[in-house]
């Protein structure tokens, strides 16, 4: 056990995590050169293509140092704020972490968020500056930032060219402590990830803290109390490779005939079924969706395919929630819950790529806790369930961290204030870079906060957040009424102070998008019975410029006669169908 090193790499998107992992695999001969493709451990095409790593595959490597062989287990942390809980569980499985910072970009908010998570887990941190080969590398500046952060000089590497990578591995072996634990003690293993395979069922990824696990043994998952017989255990090479047993300190997988991935929860503890009283490892939390939106197939006939897609994705994604719903404007669809906006984007993209279904997404919202007039407490994640009247409502707040060059400070503060943010902490990382913390309602950032932030900082600011708590709020359901009928799919929950602004904006957008009719169409935004914004679309006049050829004069005449008739009944309100395209253009890019 003293020769095992469990570690992860903390890095911002694009800072070179996958490339560094590739060098590790080469240097340790884990993969022969001919098996190498770029960014081996990025498992999804989507990841490789977007150049972002959502989560790398874990891998076990061997390395000879000072005459001894070491086992190096690299456990990845997903590189996005949506998955901070998963990050914390991955880090909990390690004793050390490499903090990788791009020499051309410097420290970013997300890196800091994950660094703090690692420090909370008491991990040994090895700071590293990457991309030192690039002409625009600002090694001195970034070195200074890192020293400010953790009071230590970073190593310098170029993962692309392999500079300093061997030294980094050896430094890690020297500094990261070996795991502790006792193979003779009752089994205690942390689930840090899980994956569903068609033939073998759920493969759970574990780090053993105590005890031993082998095929034939009965294990129990602490959160559910369900027991299973172990069918196979093994290591990641990075493919799964069978072995006789896994022992305390080791990282590997267990296959135990689990059929439903939601039962193999990240953060849960695996124990010996014959010793069910074994305590759980700390820090377990259920993966709870934070962001909710309606998913509707662009073509109604794709509904069964969309359903199939969601079920399939759910097999491998315990955090994805969904249930069927119906919208008069959009037809049958699903109300879905996600960890965050990126999670939602990924699901949408995978539905499109892997199942060929295009979806329309309604305005996303967070979950509200509402005390109703009759004293009941309800949880609302869909605008249509939000009551007109209530006693109290609570919405989730987050702690957001932003790092920016100081010249954009004013812009960003303004943006954050507009989003009901409260500044908490403020600190210079170096003379040009500012770090600050805000408390913000999650609802205010799930829409386009990130885009706005990038645009007011010309792309320089970085941003991260974590859930704080539910706080009292003055939320209202904003409805949109077109020609006297409420368009349910457009309803949204907003803070009362934003209702007028958003209502006005959407009413104006609708005015542009809804085709004119022979009768006047009114568009209203309303809170309960109160109309807060209104527009009218003037009735169509006879379009004398329309072509009159091909000889179908009868139709033209009848149209004319009908319009004449229509003018007489001007007051009558006709039905207006909201075209799907109009709907899309309205929900797209709020603000």
């Amino acid at each position: 056990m003293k020769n095992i090193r469990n570690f992860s790499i903390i890095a911002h998107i694009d800072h070179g995590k996958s490339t560094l992992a590739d060098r590790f695999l080469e240097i340790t001969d884990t993969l022969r050169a001919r098996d190498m493709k770029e960014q081996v451990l990025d498992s999804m095409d989507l990841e490789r293509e977007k150049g972002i790593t959502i989560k790398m595959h874990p891998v076990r490597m061997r390395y000879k140092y000072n005459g001894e062989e070491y086992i190096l287990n690299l456990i990845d942390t997903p590189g996005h704020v949506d998955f901070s809980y998963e990050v914390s569980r991955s880090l909990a499985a390690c004793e050390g972490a490499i903090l990788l910072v791009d020499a051309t970009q410097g420290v970013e908010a997300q890196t800091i968020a994950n660094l703090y998570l690692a420090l909370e887990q008491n991990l040994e941190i090895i700071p590293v500056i990457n991309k030192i080969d690039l002409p625009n590398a600002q090694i001195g500046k970034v070195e200074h930032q890192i020293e400010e952060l953790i009071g230590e000089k970073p190593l310098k590497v170029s993962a692309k060219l392999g500079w300093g990578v061997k030294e980094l591995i050896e430094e890690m072996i020297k500094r990261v402590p070996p795991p502790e634990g006792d193979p003779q003690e009752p089994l205690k293993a942390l689930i840090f990830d899980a994956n569903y395979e068609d033939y073998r069922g759920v493969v759970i990824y574990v780090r053993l803290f105590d005890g031993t696990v082998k095929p034939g043994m009965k294990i129990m998952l602490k959160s559910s109390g369900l027991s299973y017989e172990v069918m196979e255990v093994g290591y990641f090479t990075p493919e799964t490779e069978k072995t006789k047993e896994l022992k305390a300190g080791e990282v590997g997988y267990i296959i135990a005939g689990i059929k439903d991935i939601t039962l193999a929860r990240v953060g849960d503890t695996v124990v010996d079924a014959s010793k069910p009283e074994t305590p759980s490892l700390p820090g377990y939390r259920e993966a709870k969706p934070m962001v909710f939106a309606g998913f509707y197939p662009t073509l109604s006939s794709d509904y069964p395919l969309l359903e199939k897609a969601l079920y399939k994705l759910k097999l491998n994604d315990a955090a994805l929630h969904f249930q069927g719903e119906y919208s008069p404007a959009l037809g049958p669809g699903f109300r879905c819950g996600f960890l965050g906006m990126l999670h939602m984007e990924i699901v949408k993209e995978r539905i499109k790529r892997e199942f060929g279904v295009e979806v329309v997404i309604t305005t996303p919202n967070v979950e509200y806790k509402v005390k109703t007039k009759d004293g009941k407490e309800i949880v609302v994640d869909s605008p249509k369930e939000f009551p007109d009247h209530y006693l109290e409502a609570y919405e989730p707040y987050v702690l957001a961290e932003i790092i920016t060059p100081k010249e954009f400070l004013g812009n960003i503060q303004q943006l954050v204030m507009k989003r009901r943010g409260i500044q908490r902490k403020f600190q210079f990382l170096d003379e040009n870079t500012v770090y600050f913390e805000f408390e913000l309602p999650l609802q205010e950032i799930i829409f386009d906060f990130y885009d706005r932030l990038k645009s007011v900082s010309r792309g320089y600011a970085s941003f991260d957040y974590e859930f704080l708590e539910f706080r009292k709020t003055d939320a209202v359901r904003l409805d949109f009424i077109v020609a006297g009928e409420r368009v349910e799919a457009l309803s949204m929950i907003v803070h009362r102070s934003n209702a007028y602004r958003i209502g006005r904006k959407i009413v104006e957008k609708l005015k542009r998008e809804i085709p004119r009719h022979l009768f006047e169409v009114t568009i209203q935004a309303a809170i309960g019975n109160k109309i807060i914004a209104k527009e009218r679309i003037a009735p169509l006049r006879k379009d004398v410029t329309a072509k009159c050829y091909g000889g179908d004069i009868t139709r033209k005449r009848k149209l004319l006669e009908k319009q004449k008739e229509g003018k007489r009944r001007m007051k009558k309100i006709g039905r207006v169908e909201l075209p799907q395209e109009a709907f899309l253009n309205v929900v797209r890019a709020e603000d």
Partner: protein
Amino acid sequence: MRKPLGLYLHIPFCNQKCNYCTFFSVTPAEELYNLYVKGLRRELKFFKQFGFTFDTFFVGGGTPTSIPPKVFEDIIKIIMEELAIESLKEFTVEVNPESLTDDHIVLFKDLGINRISIGAQSFIEEELRFLGRSHGVKDIHKAYYKLREAGFKNINLDIMFGFKGQSLKSLGYTLEQVIQLAPEHISTYSLSYEKGAIKDLRLNDEQVLASMFTLNKTLLENSGYLRYEISNYAKPGFESLHNLKYWMHNFYIGLGPSASGYYLNGKDLLRYKNTRSMVKYAKMEREYETLSPEEWLLEEIFLKTRTKWGIEVKGERIRKKLKRNLENI
């Protein structure tokens, strides 16, 4: 002798449906040609009995160039055998830039076609794509020059305005491109929407639409085109004789599915419209309607006032009647 009529032939085939189009069309296929010819023969037999003569012939669609030249030739020859179309003053065929081949052009010459109408619609690639057109700007130029080379001296370009994404600037650009090509005739139609179109592409801003309408007139009249109908411009002497038959309330016969006609049957003013089904067309199913004097008058007003000539008013009684009707519209 009775005045000659206009003859219209609807070729109901298109390789691709444009996003805004509601004209009847189906995808070209051998079996459908046979149905089509079957219906056509029945119609021709029916109209032969009236002994009409024709001085204009307009072949539209659909996309007349989407069917093989040989099929096109057969169809026209069948019509020539049955109807009196030997002394045509104007013989037009509509073409789509991308499907017009050299064989088509040779054939058009052979058949005596003397006017070509090109569905150009716009000279901006993105706009063409947005409209669902299957051709690019290059195709328009290519088709146009080929037709000129082959000696066609009367060419129309169809242009469209008033769709989403189009601006006054982009319309202006398209018109400038048209003017440079110098066709004899230009139709600029504002996009309308009818049920059955793939998408409603209409621009929703009436102010911009009005300005576009004016822009057409300004740019085209500055370049020597005269507006003789709301949406049609021509160099003097190149007004479309066939389309004027519709607008001047004259008689015409339409052949092909979804085509309409207007003729005098004894004392009755008859309008008819053919079915939009290929199968039913083969059985010559159509709807008839006899115009009442009021209906006739309404048409007289809304058709003729589209043109620069307007309505000629003779006598007090007619004047009064017209006035009453105008107030009613």
